């Protein structure tokens, strides 16, 4: 158990590709931190630098307070779970679990006890003597987790561990990983491109884009107060509605509330914050034509085509509350629910 600290860490790959621009990040002892961002933004690179599988171009990686830049992955006392499980195909499940311990010269009795413990926690006892190829995807995933927990490492590093599973299993495993991490209380860094996974798992989320950190915060913070235009667009499903200030002005009939500042270039509103009636609160009213209704269980996503700017606004309504296809609809954007972003930098304005 240990904290992980990155100070001014940068990664440049051969060919002068800068995958990670210098960044600082402090991960508390026992925390589950999720790195999330689109494919190619450098999440894996960052994780692999913590693991020691990739060299650090500049800056310092510290695990448990001490610098580890020059240490081999095995000496960093971390365990990693890979996307394709990376189980040793010729070894039994037991062999896979034991291998790292054997290499460390752990006594036989200790090895057996730890394998026993991991098998019990992950319910893989019945498969211990099987080869990985005789297991289903979900079972392999458990074995990969088992290989990490038998080590009792300082930290778990996960690189998109669930992306090879089907949606249902992914949901189950997500819950299990969270439960496991809670009960073991081991510092964990979890990489995913799936914002839903990030939001549900994380103690804190790090949203990354193009090798830079866009925002660090609790999932609710990131959702409720996105720090930049990028985060606003990336987090949340359906995505936040983002309009240029001028566009919204046109749709709203030529004027916007005073709370919209002069520097505001983009205004955003979550689909679930758009309401059908103003309820007496200050709001911007816009009218459009219903283009598409997506029923998703208890609620529906309504796609509204705004005539003057030809943009689409998405809103969430309970059930099917008085909306019908091709009808005109006036909706209200409560002023208190608007997010404003700077015209130049794209950063949030409060």
């Amino acid at each position: 158990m240990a904290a992980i600290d990155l100070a001014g860490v940068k990664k440049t790959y051969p060919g002068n590709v800068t995958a990670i621009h210098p960044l600082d990040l402090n991960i508390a002892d026992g925390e589950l931190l999720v790195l999330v961002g689109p494919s190619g933004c450098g999440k894996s690179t960052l994780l692999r630098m913590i693991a020691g599988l990739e060299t650090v171009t500049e800056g310092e990686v510290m695990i448990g307070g001490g610098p580890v830049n020059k240490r081999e992955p095995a000496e960093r006392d971390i365990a990693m779970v890979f996307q394709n499980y990376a189980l040793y195909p010729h070894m039994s499940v037991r062999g896979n679990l034991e291998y790292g311990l054997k290499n460390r010269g752990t006594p036989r009795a200790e090895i057996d006890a730890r394998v026993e413990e991991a098998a019990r926690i992950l319910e893989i006892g019945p498969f211990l003597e099987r080869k990985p190829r005789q297991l289903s995807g979900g079972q392999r995933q458990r074995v990969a987790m088992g290989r990490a927990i038998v080590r009792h490492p300082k930290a778990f590093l996960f690189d998109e561990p669930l992306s090879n599973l089907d949606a249902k299993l992914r949901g189950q495993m997500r819950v299990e990983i969270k439960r496991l991490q809670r009960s073991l209380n081991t510092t964990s860094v979890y990489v995913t491109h799936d914002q839903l996974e990030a939001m549900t798992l994380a103690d804190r989320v790090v949203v990354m884009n193009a090798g830079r950190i866009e925002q660090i915060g609790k999932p609710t913070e990131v959702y409720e107060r996105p720090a930049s235009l990028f985060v606003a667009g990336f987090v949340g499903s359906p995505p936040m509605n983002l309009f240029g200030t001028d566009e919204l002005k046109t749709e709203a009939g030529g004027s916007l509330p005073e709370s919209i500042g002069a520097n505001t270039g983009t205004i955003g509103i979550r689909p679930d914050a758009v309401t059908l009636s103003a309820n007496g609160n200050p709001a911007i009213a816009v009218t459009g034509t219903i283009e598409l209704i997506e029923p998703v269980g208890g609620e529906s996503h309504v796609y509204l085509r705004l005539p003057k700017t030809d943009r689409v606004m998405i809103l969430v309504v309970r059930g099917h509350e008085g909306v019908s296809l091709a009808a005109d609809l006036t909706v209200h954007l409560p002023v208190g629910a608007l997010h404003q972003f700077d015209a130049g930098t794209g950063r949030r304005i409060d």
Partner: protein
Amino acid sequence: MVENRPWLTFFSHAILILGVLAVAFPVYLAFIASTHPQNAFISGLVPLLPGDRMIENYGTMLDAGISTSGAPPLGVMMWNSLVMALSIAIGKIIISILSAFAIVYFRFPFRLLAFWAIFITLMLPVEVRILPTFKVVADLGLLNSYAGLSIPLIASATATFLFRQFFITVPDELTEAARVDGAGPMKFFRDILLPLSRTNIAALFVILFIYGWNQYLWPLLITTDESYYTIVMGIKRMVQVADSQPNWNFVMATVTLAMLPPVLVVILMQRLFVKGLVETEK
């Protein structure tokens, strides 16, 4: 196939049977010839049914050989061939798996150059480089020795290339998992890479054993001492007799015996060998 067309079945089987016959008939003839007395061949016709001299013929060959035709006892030649074939097969596998390991897993200066140098030797089989190789072997004093018989044939790239192709299909994540699990390079090689290469090694062993066993030109060149003759060149010498008919019954007995070790290797390795040719264990 799900189709059921009687004629197609008939033809395909007929062709397969013809093919088998074409391969099996000469083998059968050789065996039959080895069971007849010497005078059975004077008419110029090869008998088609077994004779009664099998035990005597094989006995003579295994016991003494036919010294008149300048061949040592069969046992010596079989032993020499075995040593040569095994040295070539095992030596090649060891050298090539290690060099492929180096080329795929280590960054060292001129790595690409090393790979291409090895690759280019693919175009230089023994026959092409036989004279310079002979000179080198002679200068090293390796004529008439097991080292001279096998070492020049060990150095070649085919197997290195095959192992390299296999190693680059091993997922990087597996290598990284081993690193995280505390396996250094040699441990990784021994614990992960070697077991994964098992079927490839078996397939290569069969191919290389037969390759070594069937060598003719090279042993012929570098051995002048009878005690280093191999079985394949021995057969040739037995046929080349001066003023009389070759002893076909003895020659064929030798041929039949010479076929046995490769057949045995194929049979023993069959399960692994076939696996190595048709599937890659993921």
